[in-house]
């Protein structure tokens, strides 16, 4: 069942109908049981009463017999009467009978002689009376006979003298009056009726009040055996009835006394109970319907509310249902509310995740772009401005590399906090890595972007305390103002990035506003990238060689190969301009390979004691095929491996020193020399010296520049030289420009020098000449 198909009103009706139906069913069952029980009870009670009444009737019947026989006995035993009977004195007999009839209120009385003669009665009744004494079984004194439509009770008394000489016989007509007088003696209002057998064999009353029915026939026939109470129908009314066969002269009953009792009268005392049950049932039914409607309503109402809430939730609205009570419905509503809250909460979390940076919880690049677009589109309407500040941490990569990612992450979080603290009026986002961006929306003061940028730089120039470590940091910022510097987020962000790039170029720890020229520079950079690819193919590169003068041997011991790019259109391009681009694009590998080949090819033409030094960028060095390239180059050029000197900077170690060490060892095993370039500018140079025995250390130009006059620089150089000597490494001082510097370096024990003082980089042919010319050596010395 879906919620849309669900109709609570139906539920309500259904529940009410169900309960009402169940109740009615139950009530009907109870009512039927009650009815049956009442009926049974009434029947039992009536039956008991009728049995009692039947017994009473029996007693009355017997008493009447006694009374009649007693009366006739008195006459039959009278001596004079006996004498009259014995002597056949008719007149005396008749007079005696008359006296008796009057005295005993008997309508008919007669004397029956032994010969069957009758005195005192005539007609059919007299015949029946005459037969009676001869028909009665021993001990019986009375019998009931049917005679035409009438029924008579006959009673006989023998006339003994002392043997039987005749009988006194009475006849009493069992008419309606006789029945009424019997009825009066009953405790319950029963109706007594005499039934006779019709010629067709059915029992019926002579007056037609009780017509013949099979029920009555059945009742009569079963009553011969025992007393039975059954229900019969008389004149459309129902009666409880019992039949009392009245023994005829020879036993066979010619008449039956039917005692009946109207069932409606019998059940009348129980009517109030039945009515009461019905009334109570109706009242309870009404209560049940009301109650179940209320209950169903109480269930259905919250379900309706839940259904609406579920629909609302389906449509994406956050809804709550009022929790009513602590029952299951209440619990369901509570669960629903929690589910709804959970869905909304998860939804917002998903949204948050999608638009926020997990590390700093700042909005991410997507969110930033979206907001920026929104704000920019708003600007086009208001004519206001907004500022995008693009921030990049200085030296973050080395923090990650040297202190580990957890520290780097913590630093980023700290920076995020700082930025948030400084920017209450803008949107701070983390675009990825160590890049953050801030949007200052409309309504800021004109100087606000500059002030904010400066305050950020000022804040971040201080070393930060992260995880108990004091980390020197710093930031560069690029600022672009929309919509002038970009009408859409892509453009504006790119320009802010360009400004940042420029700021970094300007030296770290500064900010720079976007200028159109920056865009130009970027375009140039892209052009260089494109040109670089063709440059390698078309041989636009050439190598220059700067001699490294061996101060001990007083001769050129080595040339450092330096790449030159003669652009066909723009002329010579400095490596400073194109090497970063080559590194950014990965072209550095191919270019470096060319350099290796070309330098070694050239060096192979030099005298055996002159080596060639080749700068290998970290990217190139870490390239998997580098060792193979070196071997290939050596094999192709035929150069002695120990005449090749690979110059690497500390940056090769930045991605972990395990694979680097293995590579260094491999190169060393080939016989190739390894020099550590730009020594003194990194973070922990000394540990590298310890971990690998470099053949040479190249002292950075920055130290050489100030070696004369700057005591600290001088001391550092001294220390480096002493250290290198102790580690049996050669030293080359770079950027030597004058004799004083040379003298100082020589004095400190530097093993070789390189610089303009001795020679600028020269082309291959000039280098060859330089080796051959002994005057060079002398000049340097």
């Amino acid at each position, binding site marked *: 069942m879906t919620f849309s198909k669900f109709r609570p009103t139906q539920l309500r009706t259904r529940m009410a109908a169900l309960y009402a139906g169940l109740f009615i069913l139950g009530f009907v069952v109870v009512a039927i049981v009650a009815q049956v029980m009442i009926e049974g009870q009434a029947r039992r009670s009536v039956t008991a009463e009728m049995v009692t009444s039947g017994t009473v009737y029996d007693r009355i019947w017997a008493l009447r017999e006694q009374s009649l026989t007693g009366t006739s006995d008195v006459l039959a*035993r009278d001596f004079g009467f006996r004498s009259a009977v*014995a002597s056949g004195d008719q007149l005396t007999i008749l007079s005696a009978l008359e006296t008796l009839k009057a005295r005993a209120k008997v309508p008919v009385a007669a004397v029956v002689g032994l010969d069957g003669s009758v005195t005192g009665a005539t007609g059919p009744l007299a015949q029946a009376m005459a037969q009676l004494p001869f028909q009665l079984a021993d001990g019986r004194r009375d019998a009931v006979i049917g005679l035409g439509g009438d029924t008579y009770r006959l009673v006989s008394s023998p006339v*003994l*003298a*002392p*043997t039987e*000489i005749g009988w006194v016989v009475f006849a009493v007509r069992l008419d309606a009056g006789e029945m009424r007088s019997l009825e009066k003696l009953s405790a319950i209002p029963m109706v007594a009726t005499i039934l006779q057998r019709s010629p067709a064999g059915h029992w019926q009353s002579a007056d037609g009040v009780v017509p013949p029915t099979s029920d009555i026939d059945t009742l009569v026939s079963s009553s011969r055996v025992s007393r039975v109470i059954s229900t019969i129908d008389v004149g459309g009314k129902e009666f409880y009835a019992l039949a009392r066969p009245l023994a005829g002269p020879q036993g066979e009953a010619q008449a039956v006394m039917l005692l009946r009792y109207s069932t409606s009268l019998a059940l009348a005392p129980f009517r109030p109970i039945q009515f009461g049950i019905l009334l109570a049932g109706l009242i309870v039914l009404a209560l049940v319907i009301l109650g179940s409607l209320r209950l169903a309503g109480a269930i259905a109402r919250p379900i309706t509310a839940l259904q609406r809430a579920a629909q609302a939730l389906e449509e994406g609205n956050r809804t709550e249902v009022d929790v009513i009570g602590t029952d299951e419905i209440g619990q369901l509503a509570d669960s629903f509310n929690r589910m709804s809250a959970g869905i909304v909460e998860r939804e917002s979390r998903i949204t948050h995740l999608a638009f926020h940076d997990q590390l700093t919880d700042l909005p991410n690049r997507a969110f930033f772009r979206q907001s920026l677009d929104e704000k920019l589109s708003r600007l086009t309407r208001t004519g206001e401005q907004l500022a995008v500040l693009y921030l990049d941490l200085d030296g973050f990569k080395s923090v990650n590399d040297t202190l580990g990612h957890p520290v780097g992450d913590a630093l980023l979080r700290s920076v995020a906090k700082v930025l948030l603290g400084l920017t209450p009026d803008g949107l701070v986002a983390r675009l990825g890595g160590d890049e953050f961006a801030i949007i200052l929306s409309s309504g800021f003061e004109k100087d606000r972007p500059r002030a904010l940028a400066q305050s950020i730089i000022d804040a971040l120039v201080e070393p930060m305390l992260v995880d108990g470590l004091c980390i020197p940091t710093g930031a560069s910022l690029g600022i672009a103002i929309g919509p002038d510097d970009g009408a859409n987020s892509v453009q504006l962000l790119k320009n802010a990035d360009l400004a940042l790039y420029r700021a970094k170029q300007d030296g770290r720890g500064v900010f720079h506003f976007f200028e159109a020229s920056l865009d130009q520079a970027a375009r140039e950079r892209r052009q260089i990238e494109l040109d670089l690819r063709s440059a390698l193919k078309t041989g636009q590169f050439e190598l220059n060689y700067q001699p490294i003068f061996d101060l001990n041997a007083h001769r050129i011991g080595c040339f450092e190969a330096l790449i030159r790019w003669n652009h066909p259109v723009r002329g010579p391009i400095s490596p400073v301009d194109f090497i970063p681009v080559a590194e950014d694009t990965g072209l550095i590998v191919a270019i470096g390979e060319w350099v290796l080949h070309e330098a070694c090819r050239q060096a192979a033409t030099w005298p055996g004691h002159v080596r060639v030094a080749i700068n290998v960028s970290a990217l190139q060095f870490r390239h998997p095929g580098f060792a193979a390239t070196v071997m290939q180059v050596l094999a192709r050029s035929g150069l002695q491996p120990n005449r090749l000197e690979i110059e690497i900077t500390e940056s090769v170690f930045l991605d972990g020193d395990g694979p680097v060490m293995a590579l260094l060892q491999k190169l060393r095993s080939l016989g190739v020399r390894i020099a550590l370039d730009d020594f003194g500018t990194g973070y922990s140079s000394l540990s590298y010296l310890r971990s690998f025995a470099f053949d040479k250390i190249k002292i950075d130009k920055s130290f050489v520049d100030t070696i004369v006059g700057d005591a600290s620089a001088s001391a550092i150089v001294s220390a480096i030289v002493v250290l290198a000597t102790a580690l049996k490494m050669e030293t080359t001082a770079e950027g030597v420009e004058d004799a004083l510097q040379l003298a100082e370096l020589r004095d400190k024990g530097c093993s070789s020098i390189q610089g303009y003082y001795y020679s600028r980089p020269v082309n291959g042919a000039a280098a060859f000449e330089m080796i051959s010319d002994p005057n060079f050596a002398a000049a340097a010395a």
Partner: protein
Amino acid sequence: MFNRICLASGLWILTAAASLASPVTVVAKGADGRVLSGAVVSITVAGAPRPQPRGTYTMSQQNIAFAPHVLIVPVGATVSFPNRDRVRHHAYSFSPAKRFELKLYGRDETKSVTFDRPGVAAIGCNIHDAMSAFVFVTTTPFVAITDGSGRVVIDGVPPGQVSLALWHPSIRAPNNSVSRPAIVAAGGLATEIAPAR
């Protein structure tokens, strides 16, 4: 037993002349087929001499009962009714054979009645309904009362055509009596008599 002896002594002279005749044995039965004791069987032979009264015949009233219950007397016999009880008796008979009424109110008071017509007189007491007796007044000498097995043996009946009769108060027939013809052979007769069923 007393009345049997009386009867036997009373008939002795009568039977002497026909002493050559063989005895007649009769078993009396009731309508229900059971033997009838205390019934009177009589055989009437044409031409036979009437019996004559001899001696005294007594129907005493003792212990509120008549004794004997059945008394056979020849026609003309006088029967005395002594009251041997302390209570009074009022013997009567409404029978056609002899109607009488004796108020015997004293102890040892005796009254006599002469039965001069054949038949059975049913005798009762008006005071005591339960008292009952019968005086069988006979015209034939061949008469006897059945014993406990309903049997009589009558000697001296001459052979030939006779009328055999049975009387008992329970017999529902006129005069409580039934009869039928019978032939007595030289060797006597053994037969049954019973009322028609």
